[in-house]
């Protein structure tokens, strides 16, 4: 029996059936693969935090290389000596928890390991007038402590995020940035080593302890980034808005940690 495929009713019926079939197929795939994907994302977070701490497989001056995914769990456990969570509201720390306290809490928003805290969700909590949980991952290498904090903001097209490692004077030790959909070859280059490496050694605080942040600056007179106390790194050509996004998220999210570092 030949179907008259030109009829409007047939077209609509076809569209409806197709959407139902395709929709359920995709929903099924997504839920079947979800555990694997979640696990991969968890390992990736550990790799990113370790990267910012300076524990990575980088060789020479090429691309960024993380510690091997299979070893990430063990490296994370041995290098991150302490995870703490600060509860802040209106710029003041109202509570400080150890990682265990946070992970064992019955509160719905807690009960996870601090490194799994979703920064985006915490930023929404602030908008709802609630307090915000700020995780901090501390490594202790022969008495030299390094503190890693997650940051998150907006690039040109979509979210950008990263991890910044600082010492107790908030001098940057290392940084890692990633993005969801910045333009390849332009904004996406925030994920390149030559951009990230520039941050190491830059200060976040003035000598009097005021938080200044780091500007991703165009046309500064220090393209090789040899001057480390100018609160500037060289911008990426053709990626003004992504670069501004990086400056903004550093200023906004890292500033929240200032009270903690002041009391160290």
């Amino acid at each position, binding site marked *: 029996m030949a179907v008259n495929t*030109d009829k409007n009713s047939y077209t609509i019926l076809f569209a409806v059936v197709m959407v139902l079939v395709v929709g359920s197929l995709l929903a099924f795939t997504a839920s079947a*693969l979800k555990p694997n*994907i979640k696990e991969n994302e968890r*390992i990736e977070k550990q790799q990113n935090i370790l990267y910012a701490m300076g524990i990575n497989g980088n060789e020479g001056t090429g691309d960024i290389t993380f510690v091997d995914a299979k070893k990430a769990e063990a490296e994370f456990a041995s290098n991150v000596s302490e995870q703490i969570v600060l509860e802040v509201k209106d710029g003041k720390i109202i509570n400080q928890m150890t990682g265990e306290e946070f992970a064992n809490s019955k509160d719905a928003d807690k009960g996870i390991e601090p490194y799994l805290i979703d920064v985006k969700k915490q930023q929404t909590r602030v908008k709802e007038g609630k307090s915000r949980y700020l995780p901090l991952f501390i490594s202790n290498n022969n008495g030299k402590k390094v503190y890693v904090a997650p940051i998150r903001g907006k690039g040109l097209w979509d979210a950008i995020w990263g991890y910044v490692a600082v010492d107790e004077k908030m001098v940057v030790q290392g940084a890692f940035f990633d993005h969801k959909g910045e333009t390849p070859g332009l904004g996406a280059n925030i994920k390149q080593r030559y951009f990230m490496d520039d941050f190491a050694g830059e200060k976040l605080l003035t000598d009097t302890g005021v938080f200044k942040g780091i500007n991703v600056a165009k046309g500064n007179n220090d393209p090789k980034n040899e001057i480390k106390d100018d609160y500037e790194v060289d911008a990426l050509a053709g990626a003004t808005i992504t670069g501004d996004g990086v400056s903004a998220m550093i200023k906004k999210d890292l500033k929240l940690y200032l009270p903690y570092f002041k009391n160290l």
Partner: protein
Amino acid sequence: MGLLSKKDTKLITDPLADNNPITIQVLGICSALAITAELKASLVMGIAVLFVLGVGNVVISLLRNLIPSKIRIIVQLIVVASLVIIVDQVLKAFAFELSKTLSVFIGLIITNCIIMGRFEAFALGNGPWKSFLDGIGNALGYAVILIIVGFFRELLGSGTLFGIPVLGDPIEKTGVYGFGYENNGFMLMPPMALIIVGLIIWVQRSRNKDLIED
């Protein structure tokens, strides 16, 4: 008689050389430029397109008498998009680092003109088996070019193949680097892919004069 008839064999072999989607039809150039800095990414992109185009062509061919012509482009898009999402999810689950490398380009398969082109030009008018062979042939033709370009770009740009150093160590100055050879960083830039594709087109057309258009 072999598994494939002569006509069927032609469906696979034609796109490999004389009707290659990249060098002759000039389709799919954007992904050929974007991801060929590494051989591994080229190979995976080839396999992903092989899957999407092979399966997609069969699906479209099976539905060809049912698809209302008014919305056929939308139907084709949905078929590609769903297949691409499945490929993306599978990569995320089982080859996470690779999916990070390919990131946006996996999504870009949707817009790969080879796929829509084959759906529209072949699968809508031919049976599933033929469409499957056509899809495989075209995807292989695409993959071959990607791999050739990837091979030269990774070898000359980074001195590695599949990430394994083959020319010695550029920092320690061993292997060919000992004789003053340097990696050509320019090979890692997308324009070089276009130049290599151009060279392939040149070689191909000088060997087969029939391909030259006036």
